C-alpha cells in the first residue's frame, strides 16, 4: 500500500485538520447566540480552514504522481477498511478551490440570508467537511460516505432558505443525485467483492476484465454524469440553482459540479481504462450535445439564474469533452476548466445574489440599464461575463483553449463542433451583459457624451465593501490563471501523465473488442451476474 503514498511530513495532520475544523466550528456554533456573532464565527472558521489548506499549495511536491500528505489509520481491519486521506495533482487544486470558495459563501449570504443563521452556519460548515472529504478520501467507502453526506446539507440549504419552489427543487435535487449515487455504491461493492480492497490506488492498478470494466464504467458514469451534469441528466440543475439561495448556488456551481469531473478522473478512467477507451466516442458525443444544448438553452432564458445554470451545463460539457479526449491537453484543460468554472460561475452567482437583494427579481428585463447606477457592479459583471465566454487573457480562455487544442489534435471535427458551443457562449453572455448594462429603451440621446448620472434618484446602490472584496478576490484568479496558468498546470502535470499512462496500459483490451468481439459483452454480462451470486 505504501508504494502509492507519501506520508504527511508537515508537523500537523493537515488533511484531517481540514476535515475536522468545520465540524468543530459547527459544534461550537450550536452554542452561540446572535446572528452577527454567528456570521463572524462562520466567516472565521471558513477563513481558518482556508489558511490551514495553504500548505497544500506551498509544500506540494510536483514531481511525483503519488498521493501526498497522506494520513493512514486502520479502521475496520476485518474489512480491510482504512481511514486514508491523501491528495495528488488531480485533487489538490479542487481542495484549495473548496476551502477558498467557502468564506465567500458566508460573505455573500451576509444580508441575503435573513432567518436561522445558526442553522445556516452549521449546515454550511458541515457541507464544507463533506465536500473536502470527497476530494481527500483514498478509500471508496470513505468517498461514498462523504459523497452521500453532501446531499443532506445541500438539501437543507435549498429547502430552508430557497425560493418559491424550494420544496420541488430540493426534493428533486436530492432524489436525482441520490439515484445516481446508488449505482456508484453498487460499483464500489462489486469491486470490493472482486478485489477485496476499498483502497482506490489498488483498485486503479487492478486490471479487470473488459466486460466487468464496462459495468463498472457504466455504473460510475451514471452517477458522475448526473452530478456533472451531463445531458440528458441535467434537468435537476436549473431547478436547484434557481431556487437555491445565493450561497447554495455558489456551492453548487463552484464545487458540487466538480465532483462529477473528479469522479470521472478518479474512478472511470483509471479503474476502467479499456471501457473508457471503448466508450470514448459516445462520451464525446454526449459532451458535445451538452455544450451545444446547454448553450442553446441558456440563450432562451429570461431568468438570469437559469441562464447561468444552463451555461454551466455547457461549460461542464467542455470538462467531459476534455476528459474523454484522453490526451494531455484535454485532461489538463478539463481540470483547469473545473477550477475556472468554479471561480467564474461562482462569481456570477454572487453577482446575481447582489442584484437580487436590490431589485428582488431575477428577470433580465427587471435588471436592465444598471450601467448608469452601478458602475462597479457592471465592471465586475463585464469581467466575469468575458471570463465565462473565454475571452483571451481570462482564466476560461486557457482551459477552453487547451480542450479545443486537445480536440483538434485528436478529432478536428469535434473541435469544430465545440467551437460552435463557444460562439453560443458568447451569444448568451453578451445578450445578458448587453441587456443588463445598457438602457434598452430608445431615449432621445443624440449627444453621445450626455451625462446621465445625477438628478435621478434610484434605489440601486453600487457594491459595498463586502461585496467588492468577494468579487475582487475572484477577479484576481480570473487574471492570474488567464495570464500565468503554468504553476497550476505544473501541479497537475505528474498526476495527469501518470493517469494517461494508466489508461494507455489498460486500454489494450478493446483492440480485441474492436475486431468483432463486442457482442461478447452481453454474454459476459450474464456470466458476471451469475458469478456475483
Amino acid at each position, binding site marked *: 500500500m505504501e508504494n502509492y503514498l507519501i506520508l504527511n511530513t508537515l508537523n500537523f495532520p493537515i488533511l484531517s485538520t481540514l476535515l475536522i475544523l468545520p465540524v468543530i466550528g459547527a459544534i461550537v456554533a450550536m452554542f452561540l447566540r446572535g446572528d452577527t456573532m454567528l456570521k463572524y464565527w462562520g466567516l472565521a472558521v471558513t477563513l481558518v480552514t482556508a489558511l490551514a489548506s495553504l500548505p497544500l499549495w506551498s509544500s506540494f511536491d510536483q514531481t511525483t504522481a503519488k498521493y501526498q500528505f497522506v494520513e493512514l489509520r486502520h479502521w475496520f481491519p476485518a474489512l480491510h477498511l482504512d481511514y486514508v486521506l491523501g491528495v495528488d495533482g488531480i485533487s489538490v487544486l479542487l481542495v484549495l478551490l473548496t476551502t477558498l470558495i467557502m468564506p465567500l459563501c458566508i460573505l455573500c449570504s451576509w444580508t441575503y440570508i435573513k432567518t436561522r443563521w445558526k442553522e445556516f452556519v452549521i449546515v454550511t460548515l458541515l457541507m464544507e467537511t463533506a465536500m473536502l472529504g470527497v476530494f481527500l478520501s483514498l478509500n471508496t467507502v470513505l468517498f461514498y460516505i462523504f459523497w452521500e453526506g453532501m446531499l443532506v446539507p445541500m438539501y437543507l440549504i435549498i429547502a430552508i432558505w430557497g425560493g418559491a419552489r424550494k420544496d420541488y427543487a430540493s426534493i*428533486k435535487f436530492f432524489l436525482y443525485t441520490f439515484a445516481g449515487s446508488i449505482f456508484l455504491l453498487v460499483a464500489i461493492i462489486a469491486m470490493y467483492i472482486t478485489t477485496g480492497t476499498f483502497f482506490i490506488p489498488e483498485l486503479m492498478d487492478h486490471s479487470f476484465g473488459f466486460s466487468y470494466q464496462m459495468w463498472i464504467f457504466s455504473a460510475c458514469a451514471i452517477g458522475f454524469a448526473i452530478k456533472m451534469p451531463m445531458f440528458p441528466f441535467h434537468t435537476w440543475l436549473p431547478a436547484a440553482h434557481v431556487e437555491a439561495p445565493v450561497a447554495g448556488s455558489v456551492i453548487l456551481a463552484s464545487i458540487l459540479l466538480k465532483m462529477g469531473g473528479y469522479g470521472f478522473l478518479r474512478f472511470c478512467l483509471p479503474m476502467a481504462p479499456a471501457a473508457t477507451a471503448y466508450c470514448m466516442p459516445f462520451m464525446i458525443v454526449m459532451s458535445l450535445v451538452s455544450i451545444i444544448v446547454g448553450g442553446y438553452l441558456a440563450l432562451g432564458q429570461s431568468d438570469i439564474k437559469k441562464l447561468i445554470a444552463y451555461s454551466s451545463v455547457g461549460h461542464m460539457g467542455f470538462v467531459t469533452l476534455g476528459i474523454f479526449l484522453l490526451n494531455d491537453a484535454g485532461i489538463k484543460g478539463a481540470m483547469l476548466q473545473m477550477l475556472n468554472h468554479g471561480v467564474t460561475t461562482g462569481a456570477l452567482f454572487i453577482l446575481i445574489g447582489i442584484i437580487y437583494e436590490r431589485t428582488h427579481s431575477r428577470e433580465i428585463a427587471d435588471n436592465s440599464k444598471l450601467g448608469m447606477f452601478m458602475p462597479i457592479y457592471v465592471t465586475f459583471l463585464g469581467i466575469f461575463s468575458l471570463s465565462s465566454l473565454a475571452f483571451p487573457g481570462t482564466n476560461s480562455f486557457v482551459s477552453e483553449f487547451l480542450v479545443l487544442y486537445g480536440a483538434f489534435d485528436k478529432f478536428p471535427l469535434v473541435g469544430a463542433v465545440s467551437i460552435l458551443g463557444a460562439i453560443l457562449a458568447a451569444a448568451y453572455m*453578451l445578450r445578458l451583459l448587453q441587456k443588463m448594462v445598457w438602457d434598452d429603451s430608445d431615449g432621445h440621446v443624440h449627444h*453621445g457624451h450626455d451625462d446621465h448620472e445625477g438628478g435621478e434618484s434610484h434605489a440601486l446602490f453600487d457594491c459595498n465593501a463586502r461585496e467588492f472584496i468577494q468579487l475582487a478576490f475572484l477577479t484576481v484568479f480570473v487574471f492570474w490563471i488567464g495570464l500565468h496558468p503554468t504553476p497550476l498546470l505544473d501541479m497537475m502535470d505528474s498526476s495527469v501523465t501518470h493517469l494517461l499512462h494508466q489508461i494507455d496500459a489498460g486500454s489494450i483490451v478493446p483492440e480485441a473488442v474492436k475486431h468483432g468481439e463486442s457482442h461478447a459483452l452481453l454474454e459476459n454480462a450474464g456470466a458476471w451476474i451469475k458469478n456475483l451470486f
Partner: protein
Amino acid sequence: MTSSIFMHPATMFIIGALLLPLANKLKIQKIWLVLVPLLAFIQIHYLPESFGRVEWLGFDLQFGRVDQLTVVFLHVFTLMALIGSIFGLHVKESGQHAAAWLYVAGSLGTTLAGDYLTIFIFWELMAFASVFLVWYRKRRRSIEAGYRYLLVHTFGGLVLLGGIFLHYQNGHDLSFVAISPDTATLAQYIIMVGFMLNAAVPPIHAWLPDAYPEATVIGAVFMCAFTTKTAVYVLARGFAGFEALMILGAIMTLYGVFYAVIENDARRILAYHIVSQVGYMVCGVGIGTEMAVNGAAAHAYAHILYKALLFMGVGSVLEMTGRSKLSELGGLYKYMPVSMVFTVIGGIAISGFPLTSGFISKSMIIAAAAEEQQIIIMLMLSLAAVGTFLSVGIKLPYYIWFGPNDCGLKPKEVYWNMKVGMSIAAFMCIFLGIFPGYLYNMLPYAVHWHPYTAHHLAETFYLLGFTGFAFYLMSKYLKPHDVSNLDLDWFYRRGADWFMWLARHPVNASNEWVSNVYQNVGLRFTRATAKALSWFDWEGIDWALDGSARGVVKSGDQVRQFQTGKLQQYIGAAAALIFIVLIVVVLI
C-alpha cells in the same frame, strides 16, 4: 521578458486605458488623452526588430516583430489614435475613450504579432473593445447592432482559431509568415476566411454597414480606421498573391460603391465606402506583386486618414444637429464652414484628386493591376473610383453643406478639439499628396512609381471631370422635382445613372437578405428553437421524471390504504394468503 512587454506600444494604450478613470478624477483626462497616443507615436520609431518572445502553454509566442510592412501600419495606427483622441477630447465618459484605446491596442498587437496565437488574442480584444464604441451611443438600435456586430466577430474569431489549430497540427509551427498560394492548405484557407471577415469582404461584410453608422461619433472615427486595415495588414503579410483575394477585392470596390451611391444616411454612405476602399487594398494584396502590396499598404495609410476625416466631418454634423440623413440636412455651410472645408478635403482625397493622398496611393494599385495584365480588374477599380467621386466627393458634401433645400437648422461650429483633430487629418491628406515620398519611403518595398505623370493626371481629370459634369447636369435637370425631402431621396437613387437603379433592386435585395440573415433567420430562429428546447426540457424530460416520481407516490398511497390497522384483518389476510400459496404449491 518583462521589460519587453513594456516596450510594446499596445501596453501603453492598455495601461493608459486602465488609468483613464483615474485621470478623469484628477481632472487631467484631456492631457492624458493626448499624451499617451503621442508617446506611442514616438515610441514606435524605436522598436527593435524582435521582442517579447514568450513561452505560453508550450507555444512560442512572439509579441513583437517589426519590419517595413509593420512600420507603415504602426505609423498610421498610432497617428490615427492621436487624431481620434484629440477629436474626442470633449467627451467626458472615460469608458468610451478606454474602449477606443483598448481597441487600438488590439490593432497594434495584431500588427506586431509574430505568431497566429498572439494575433488571435489581440484579434478578440479588438472585437470586444470596439463593440463598446457602438454601445456607448446608448440607443436601442445601437445596442442591437453592437450585439450583432460582436456575434459576427466572435464567429469570425473562432473560425480563425479553428484554422490556427488545424494549421498547428500540420506543421507544429505557429509563426505567422507569408504563405504561398501554390502550397496553401485547407487550414490556411480557413485562417484566410477569418481574416476576410474583418476585412468586410462580401458576402461576410454586412456587419460593417450595420454597426458603424450606429456607433458614437468618436466611435465611428476609430472604427473606420482599425478593424478593416488590420485585416488588410494580416492578409498582406500572410496571403499576398492569392488570386481569390484579387477578384474579391475588385468586386468589393464596386459593391461598396453601389450601396454608397444609393444610401441616404451619411455615415452609412461612408461605411459602404470602407467596403469599397478596402476592396482596393484586398485587390492589391491579391495581385501580390511588390508594387501591388506597396499600393495596398500606401492606400491603407491614406485611406485611414481621409476616411477618418470624413467620419469626423459627418460626425461633427451629427454631434451638433443630431442628424445624419442627407435628406434631413442641407445648407449648413453658413454655420459650420470649418467642418465643411475639412469634409470636402476628405471627399476629394478619397476620390483621388491630384495633390491629395488618395491620388498617390490608389493609382499604384490600379497601375499594378495593369502591369499584371489584369484589364478587367483595372477597369473595375477605375469604375469604382468614378462611383466614389460621385457619392463622397460630390453627393455627400453637396447635400450636407449646400444642397437644394435648407434644413432650417442653425448649428454652432464644432468644438475646438474637433477642429484640431480634423485639421491634422486634412493636413496629412494634402501633405501626402504633395510629398508622396514621405509615404513611399515607409512602404515595404522600394517604390519605382511616379504618380504625377501627364498621362495619369489627364486620365484622372478626365474621369473626375466627366463624373462631376454628369452630376451637375442631372442635378439641374432634377431640381424642379425637388419639392420635399422625399424627392431628394428619390433623386439620388434614380438620377445619377441607370446602374444605380439596377443595383438597387436585385443587389439591394440580396444585400438586405444577407445582412438580415443572421438577424431574422439566425437570431430569431435560434431564440425560437432555444425556447422550444427549453420547453421540452421542462415539459418533456422533466415531465417523464416527475411523472414517474408521482407514480411511485401514488402507488404508495394506494398500498397504504390496504392498511386498516385492525389486527384481525391482517391475520385473516395472512391466513388467506398462506392458503392460496398452499393450494398453488399442492396443485403444481
